[in-house]
């Protein structure tokens, strides 16, 4: 262990070199021992996650009779209902990401311009829903958006619309809930990249005669791209595998891949079909992450949570 404590006494150059190989070996052993500290964590992840998911890969290639077959994948291609599920999944993910950008970017910009004390208060409004349980927030939207819910009550009494609108148990409700849950994942990285911009750059742009709009789009906006793309990627990836919110607020009308996986197991006990869907979802997620990692620093993404 203590490789550096047994160095040779001063003035004896030759034995020091003799020790070199031993020292290097000790150093290597020590680094391996240190790496070993990570082994309980890696073992847990291997046993609870990697091996079972690997088994699902294997099962996805088994047919109903237990022999090797591609029927689970063929079904996905041949049946219209499966194509629709993938279309819905991408539709929900893209729309959620898009709305999050449209709503989140201006808010992050607003927050980045506030003096520190006010900015901290504004930040709490972003962080509070971030802490709150996913289920609680989904439930809150269910209550607000239902037929006799608060939104319909107020909308009608203010004369904005006459009949109660169908706001939940459909795509509208799903999108409202998803956007609310995903917004902090977009706002926080964008806000971070905006705060890091040197404000003098905007002054310089103005000074050189740029119209404020031009200064914004040519100077400010490109500098926020790393945060914006990291946040948008995070939101999109989380949406692809989302389950709880569409299951509760979609009311069975919005079927995403993750919900079909659960249905295949709970209703039909069809592990092959569920696994094949899971494999496609995982491969899609990894492919998107891989492509993105070639353009972005993925370290920026760390620090999420998902449901």
């Amino acid at each position, binding site marked *: *262990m203590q490789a*550096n404590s047994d160095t040779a006494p001063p003035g004896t150059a030759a034995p020091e070199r003799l020790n070199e190989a031993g020292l290097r070996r000790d150093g290597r052993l020590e680094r*391996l021992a*240190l*790496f070993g*500290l*990570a082994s*309980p*964590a*890696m073992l*847990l*992840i*291997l046993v609870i*996650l*990697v091996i*079972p998911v690997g*088994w*699902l890969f294997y099962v996805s290639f088994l047919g109903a009779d237990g022999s090797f077959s591609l029927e689970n994948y063929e079904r996905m291609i041949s049946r219209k209902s499966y194509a629709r599920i993938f279309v819905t999944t991408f539709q929900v993910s893209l729309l959620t990401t898009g709305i999050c950008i449209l709503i989140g970017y*201006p*808010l992050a910009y*607003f927050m980045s311009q506030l003096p520190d004390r006010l900015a901290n208060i*504004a930040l709490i*409004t972003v*962080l*509070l*829903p971030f*802490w*709150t*349980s*996913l*289920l609680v*927030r989904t439930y*809150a939207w*269910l*209550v607000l958006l239902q037929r006799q819910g608060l939104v319909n009550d107020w909308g009608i009494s203010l004369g904005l619309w006459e009949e109660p609108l169908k706001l939940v148990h459909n795509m509208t409700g799903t999108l409202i809930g998803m956007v*609310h849950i995903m917004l902090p994942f977009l706002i926080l990285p964008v806000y971070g990249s905006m705060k890091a911009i040197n*404000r*003098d750059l*905007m*002054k310089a742009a*103005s000074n050189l005669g740029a119209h*404020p709009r031009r200064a*914004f789009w040519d100077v400010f906006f490109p500098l926020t791209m790393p945060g914006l793309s990291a946040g948008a990627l995070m939101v999109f990836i989380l949406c692809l*595998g989302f*389950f*709880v919110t569409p299951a509760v607020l979609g009311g069975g009308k919005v079927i995403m891949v*993750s919900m079909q996986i*659960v249905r295949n*197991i709970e209703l039909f006990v069809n*592990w092959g079909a*569920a696994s094949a869907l*899971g494999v496609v*979802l*995982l491969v899609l*997620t990894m492919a998107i992450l891989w492509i993105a990692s070639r353009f972005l620093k993925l370290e920026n993404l*760390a*620090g*999420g*949570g998902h*449901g």
Partner: protein
Amino acid sequence: MSWLNKPATETQITHGQRLWLYILAVIIMILLVTPTLIVIPMSFSDSQYLEFPPETWSTRWYNSYFGSPEWMRATATSLKVAVLTMLVATPVGVLAAYGLHASNVAFVRAAFVLMLTPMMVPLVLIAIGAFYAYVQLKILYTVTGLVLAHTVLALPLVVIVTGSALKSYDMAQENAARSLGAPRWKAFMTVTLPQIKFGVITAALLSFLTSFDEVVVAMFISGGDNPTLTRNMFNALRDQIDPTIASISTIMILVTTCMMVLAQTLGRDRRPK
């Protein structure tokens, strides 16, 4: 209003010119916060239906929650699992973060990617994988199984938070302690750990919350005698809108807010930079 004509940005846009931004931002902030907060007054309503503002106030939905052995059992399970997850995930994750930080063998990067897989693999897939594995290991519907699965979900957060605390710590201090004769573990416990403790506390609280809030995995591997609170809530939500859920939600908001306030006060690094 002279304030409206004052320049607000470096590019001399006035407050008046971007009034729309202020209005939009305030509306978004209200939309972010109110949906969750509105559950709190609703939970004190006396009515069968969820109304706002409630016409008469009562604590009947709290009575119905605290009076139900089923909800109480689920709450106890959730709290037990969350505390155990915190106690397992924190040391295991801190060890891993330290090991990966201090060792520079060639495959550290690969190991780091492995540590992050629980965050990248879709939850549903983790859930059905664990379900299958637990049938084989005969730990389906047990507290042990839940704690192990939630630990796996919490590990990436612990490794990231502790790892970033380690990054701003100077390892030379530990080397100094060791060259003065302290064994490695002692140097870690007395020199390194006190300096990264803010990160470790934050990591511990995050792993508690990860477990306490988790729905999808618990849906598959909790049940029988040990359903979690979130699993029962999710099932209740699919059936009908029972105001009891509002009271449980209020309590959950209270628990998570307390945790986050704790994390802010205990986990903040107050040393001068």
